[in-house]
């Protein structure tokens, strides 16, 4: 392991790796990525792979649009097949209030160039054969949303970054960060120390612990999120289906498995990734209610990962007031994967002073003190 670096990225999830990948492509390679587990250990290796552009704020719509463009190119760029498949996202609304909400978000999405449209329950059951539309008021469908396999995205970006000279150390845990006054001096790990003045906190659900090492308090909270996979069948389901009344979502992977989860409003913040029978029950019931033919398919496995949640549902990016060179890229909740390409590229440009993206001051930690928060309402799970 190197003993000094221009920049240290803590966290080898999709965010840290996307940053490393873009920095390397811009020629900045004196970078070390530190990951306590294997690549894919964090939320980035445990998610649903959903990539959608149906959002309620222009910021998010634009980020995801750019990320979709980038995901489409990433398999070729990295040589790792992401199996990115644009089968769309179909949202089901069951009450008039949600339906009205959909109408106005669709207008905003259309203005940004996302071809989302309202579809009637009858039309929806043509998009998803066998869909039970009882009690469904209206649906929103955007054919250019999609799903991908998370693992190859991580491996591909890591491979390119390390081929270009970035050092990626897995099974290397950060235990402390030393600072003199406002200045970072070194990052301490269980495998040795790295002298550096700049640290990126891309540690996902562990970001609070990392920030604490420098006396910085983040408001993020980790929430367990369970997910399951059904045995593979022949491909029959094009879009990701999501029920806005209970946060259910499921899609079919390119291996034919149905993969999905459901919200749990009773989930308390914790660092637990155990499995619960309650999830199996709620998820199976919700899924079978929406698509009855899934009832015959066997559940093969359930697992869990963290949503790294912030008070306003938006990530924490950019500088902090207390310490120089301590950059936050965390708090991505349940939608960090789908914005990782755009965020990584923008962060690389911002760090290298090639561009001054507003988002890094708009979503900085101090926004909570300033009271300048904007809530994204279209979150699932």
């Amino acid at each position: 392991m190197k003993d000094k670096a221009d920049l240290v990225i803590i966290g080898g999830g999709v965010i840290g790796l996307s940053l490393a990948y873009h920095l390397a492509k811009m020629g900045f390679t004196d970078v070390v990525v530190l990951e306590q587990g294997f690549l894919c250990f964090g939320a980035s290796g445990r998610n649903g792979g959903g990539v959608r552009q149906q959002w309620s704020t222009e910021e998010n719509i634009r980020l995801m649009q750019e990320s979709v463009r980038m995901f489409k190119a990433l398999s070729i760029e990295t040589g790792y097949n992401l199996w990115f498949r644009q089968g769309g996202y179909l949202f089901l609304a069951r009450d008039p209030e949600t339906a009205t909400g959909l109408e106005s978000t669709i207008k905003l999405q259309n203005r940004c160039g996302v071809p989302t449209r309202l579809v009637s329950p009858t039309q929806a059951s043509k998009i998803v054969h066998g869909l039970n539309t009882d009690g469904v008021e209206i649906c929103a469908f955007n054919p250019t949303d999609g799903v991908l396999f998370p693992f190859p995205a991580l491996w591909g970006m890591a491979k390119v970054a390390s081929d270009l000279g970035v050092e990626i150390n897995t099974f290397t845990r950060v235990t402390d960060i030393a600072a003199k006054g406002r200045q970072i001096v070194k990052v301490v790990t269980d495998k040795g120390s790295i002298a550096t003045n700049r640290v990126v906190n891309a540690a996902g659900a562990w970001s609070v612990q990392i920030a604490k090492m420098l006396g910085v308090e983040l408001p993020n909270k980790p929430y367990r999120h369970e997910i399951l996979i059904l045995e593979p069948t022949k491909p029959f389901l094009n879009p990701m289906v999501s029920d806005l009344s209970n946060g259910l979502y499921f899609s079919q992977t390119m291996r034919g498995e149905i993969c999905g989860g459901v919200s749990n409003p009773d989930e308390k913040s914790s660092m637990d990734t155990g499995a619960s029978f309650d999830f199996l029950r709620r998820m199976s019931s919700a899924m079978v209610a929406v698509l009855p033919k899934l009832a015959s398919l066997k559940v093969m496995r359930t697992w869990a990962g963290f949503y790294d949640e912030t008070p306003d549902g938006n990530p924490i990016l950019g500088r902090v007031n207390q310490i120089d060179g301590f950059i936050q890229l965390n708090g991505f909740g349940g939608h960090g994967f789908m914005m990782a390409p755009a965020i990584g590229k923008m962060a690389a440009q911002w760090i290298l002073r090639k561009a001054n993206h507003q988002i890094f001051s708009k979503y900085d930690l101090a926004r909570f003190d300033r009271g300048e928060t904007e809530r994204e309402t279209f979150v699932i799970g």
Partner: protein
Amino acid sequence: MAKTIVCHCEDVTLEDLKEAFEAGYRDLESLKRYTGFATGLCQGKGCTAHVARMLSSLKGGDDVVSDPPRTRPLLHPTPAARFAGQTRFAGQNSSSKSCDEEES
């Protein structure tokens, strides 16, 4: 040429695993994700120990591989209907089908 199949559910061969090892996937979790071993109907009950032994010998034999992927539900693949409170498909045991066929 003869093949040695290590993971029967997902047809992962010894060669696949060696290739993955060469490509840098040198822990059980990464090997699992890269090759797909242990991701089929038996969820690794039949192959994880074999892969662990193989990995240990590829690493020179003295590196004991003791970090198997976490054991998670289900112990036995079970139709979603059972957890949704339905009695349909109760005795079902076959695998690899189309769910359209099962509906009728």
